[in-house]
């Protein structure tokens, strides 16, 4: 697989559109191209942002945030906040 072909596959990969047989070839090429491949795959994830940002934002129910924050504060007070990053 050429790097250009890998790039095409990477864009399909990040949206989960590779078929199983293609996935095997993709992973092999990913190893072959090493750091350059990883960097490209990472960059491809900006497609996710683009798709999400292309949508008109929707209004969430006001009660959702209240419920969420009540749960989070309760957990936080119990000392069960999210684990810190390494």
């Amino acid at each position: 697989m050429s790097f250009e072909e890998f790039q095409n596959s990477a864009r399909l990969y990040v949206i989960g559109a590779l078929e199983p047989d293609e996935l095997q070839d993709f992973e092999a090429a990913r190893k072959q191209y090493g750091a350059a491949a990883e960097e490209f795959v990472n960059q491809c994830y900006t497609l996710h942002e683009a798709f999400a940002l292309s949508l008109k934002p929707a209004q969430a129910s006001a009660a959702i945030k209240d419920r969420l924050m009540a749960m989070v504060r309760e957990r936080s007070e119990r000392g069960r906040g999210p684990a810190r990053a390494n």
Partner: protein
Amino acid sequence: MSSVADPSLKGTPTSDVETAPSGKLSVSAVEPQPGTPTDVDLMIGIQAGDPDALSQLYDRYSGILKALILRIIHNDTEADDLLQEVFMEIWNQAKNFSAQKGKPLGWMVTLTRRRAIDALRKKQAYARAEERLQAEPEQQPLAWGQNTTAEDITSGDRRALMAKVIQSLPEAQQQVIDLAFFQGMSQREIAAHTNIPLGTVKTRLELGLKKIYDSLKELKDEL
């Protein structure tokens, strides 16, 4: 109106779960105003167990993430419930976010998409979703866009720019990308769903995604 409103346009959208190196190809980022915490600041706050950081992140991005969920599961009540679950997961999984590997918005979008597609599958809602989509043909695929105007673009609205990029694709390419990204369909599923040959589906996906990717790179260079 969106709960995101202006604050969502001031954050520092970022990339992702497997994620992207900071600053490489982030087109959605808008520099926060002085004194406003960046998205990364908020993620660090969440990692430290600060509920207020999550509250601010919610205000900034709940509208975008709910739109994404709605686009996938097509049910407002279920979308609200899932949105709550997503932010709870953001809280619980914040330790897995690394600014070295990517940016918060991309990370959240990927997480949200996965959850929404999982929910869709678990509830065996594919058939019902398709029925709804068929009942709303005017939303496919044009609902993707936002009636972008020149004013939107000159005002620096990144959302409008993203919509413009996607609207610039031929509808056939928009359709297959929509089915892959928002419905989680594989190439074979898309081929079966649309009666388009598998090879054509692949070609349309590759061409469409490359055009979007290249456009994002150009925008990054220009902005």
